[in-house]
């Protein structure tokens, strides 16, 4: 493979002068402590929800996070339907499920690309994002937009998937299998990826339970939870599929968990297209009476939890949003210390935070003087890969 020269590409977040989103305290090469600071994306969405009416909130929560942009509206409409005590018609449920699984595939491919970039495999980055483009084309075909799809509404799905689109979806997934096989083989065979990710950033099962982690981060540490199976919604209980659980808890387990989940998602979509019935896609909902409801879905990063309370008017009284990364990001307090600085970049990225956080990090000595910033952390990680490669090929 012709490896391109690495150009440090600015990731998708402010490369500011004083980032200090993660403050790593080091002694020599080892990280001894981590402090986390967030809040740069805080837009006051929970308060804004109280000023919008029930259908407008669906569009508002879609923009909480761009990558998992279906999970939040999905959890919100499930919460309102829980309040009302209604169930979405079957065809609508299947459509919601297909969109959610397509989103899982595109989100995991995105993460795979970024993880490759942090280790120094820029080719993996380019290929993973190139493999992602047909999925975004599918979204454009079905919903009209590459990224914010607006397919959810209280009572069902907003738009139908036309019968003539089914062959296009199946063909795209068939091509995707070839790309996934390539990534799976690369991760299984490459000794450098093994050296960089096995035994790095281990999250023990005990810590995973104490921090209440969710999603692939939990499943890679042996915690067998998945909202699609436990608190089943849409039509997940009508289809045969498996939950991927591994025991090691290191970065390698997280990579493998996500790749295997992509295979499962492709399989779920194919089975759904075979089983989807004809019929209505939505129930009409007029008023929302007094009450409260809870909705949760398995977003690509974990359990996305929404709670709504109504007092009979046309706006929510309270709308509580809990994104999955809120539970996963604090685990960095235990997974980063004890390892070297060059492993910090990949460990911080392994929980798949819903914002690229390593460039908002800075390394401090115990006395408090700043030594490195986030860009340099990524470069250190890439240099370690180069050293390993030279050692192995020499």
């Amino acid at each position, binding site marked *: 493979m012709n490896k391109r020269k690495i150009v440090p590409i600015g990731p998708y977040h402010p490369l500011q002068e004083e980032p200090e989103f993660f403050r790593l305290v080091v002694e020599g090469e080892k990280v001894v402590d981590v402090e986390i600071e*967030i*809040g740069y994306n*805080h837009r*006051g969405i*929970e*308060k*804004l929800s*109280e*000023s919008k009416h029930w259908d407008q909130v669906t569009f508002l929560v879609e923009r909480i996070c761009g990558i998992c942009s279906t999970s939040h509206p999905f959890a919100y409409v499930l919460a309102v339907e*829980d309040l009302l*005590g209604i169930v979405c018609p079957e065809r609508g449920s299947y459509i919601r499920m297909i969109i959610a699984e397509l989103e899982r595939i595109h989100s995991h491919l995105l993460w795979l690309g970024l993880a490759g970039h942090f280790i120094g495999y820029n080719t993996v980055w380019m290929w993973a994002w190139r493999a992602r483009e047909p999925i975004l084309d599918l979204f454009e075909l079905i919903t009209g937009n590459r990224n914010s799809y607006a397919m959810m509404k209280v009572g069902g799905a907003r738009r139908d998937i036309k019968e003539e689109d089914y062959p296009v979806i199946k063909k795209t997934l068939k091509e995707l299998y070839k790309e996934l096989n390539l990534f799976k083989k690369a991760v299984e065979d490459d000794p450098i990826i093994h050296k960089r990710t096995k035994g790095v950033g281990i999250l023990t099962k005990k*810590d995973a*339970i*104490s*921090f*209440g982690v969710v999603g692939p981060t939990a499943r890679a540490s042996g915690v*067998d*939870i998945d*909202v699609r199976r*436990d*608190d*089943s919604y849409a039509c997940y209980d009508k289809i045969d599929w498996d939950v991927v659980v591994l025991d090691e808890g290191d970065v390698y387990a997280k990579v493998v968990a996500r790749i295997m989940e992509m295979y499962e998602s492709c399989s779920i979509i194919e089975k759904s297209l075979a089983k989807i019935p004809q019929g209505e896609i939505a129930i009409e909902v007029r008023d929302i009476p007094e009450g*409260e*409801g*809870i909705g*949760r879905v398995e977003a690509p990063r974990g*359990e996305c*939890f929404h*709670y709504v*309370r109504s007092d009979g008017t046309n706006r929510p*009284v*309270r709308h*509580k949003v*809990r994104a999955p990364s*809120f*539970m996963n990001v*604090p685990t960095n307090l235990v997974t980063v210390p004890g390892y070297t600085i060059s492993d910090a970049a990949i460990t911080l990225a392994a929980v798949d935070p819903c914002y690229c956080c390593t460039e908002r990090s800075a390394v401090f000595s115990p006395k408090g003087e700043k030594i490195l910033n986030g860009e340099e952390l990524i470069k250190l990680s890439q240099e370690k890969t180069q050293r390993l490669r030279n050692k192995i090929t020499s």
Partner: protein
Amino acid sequence: MIKDDVKKKLEGKFKEWRVKNPRRIYLVIDKVDLREVAEVLYSHFKMRLSTVSGIDNEDNFELIYHFGYDKTGEIFSIRIFIKNKDNPKIDSLTPMFRAGEWIEREIHEMLGIDFVGNKNLEHLLLDHDWPEGNYPLRKSCILEKRPYPLEERDNE
């Protein structure tokens, strides 16, 4: 389903028990019983805390602790009313598990409730310059009104 086992184990601790549908159970307890009930749910039944919702009602603060039992998908939502709106306090759950650290920090900065026992209640989401005593999620705080003056503009 384990709701009957939970109800038997928590006998005498809850004031109200409502089953909304097979997987959503709501119960009301006194705030002094929080640690005990949480201990039963977390250590004995091995449930997981999903989040805590805080609501500003007219005459009290309401905190709802959402514990989920992953094997069956049931969510037990524990409701606590805090009558003292001038100085709201409640025990922190951080000595039991670490999931509560950030959850309690967020509620503290948004609603102003003090969690006794949580060692770090600094601002999590709001800016460090955000004025003390101004809690955005309280009903008294109006959405469009910013508590600080907008900065000087240097237009072209």
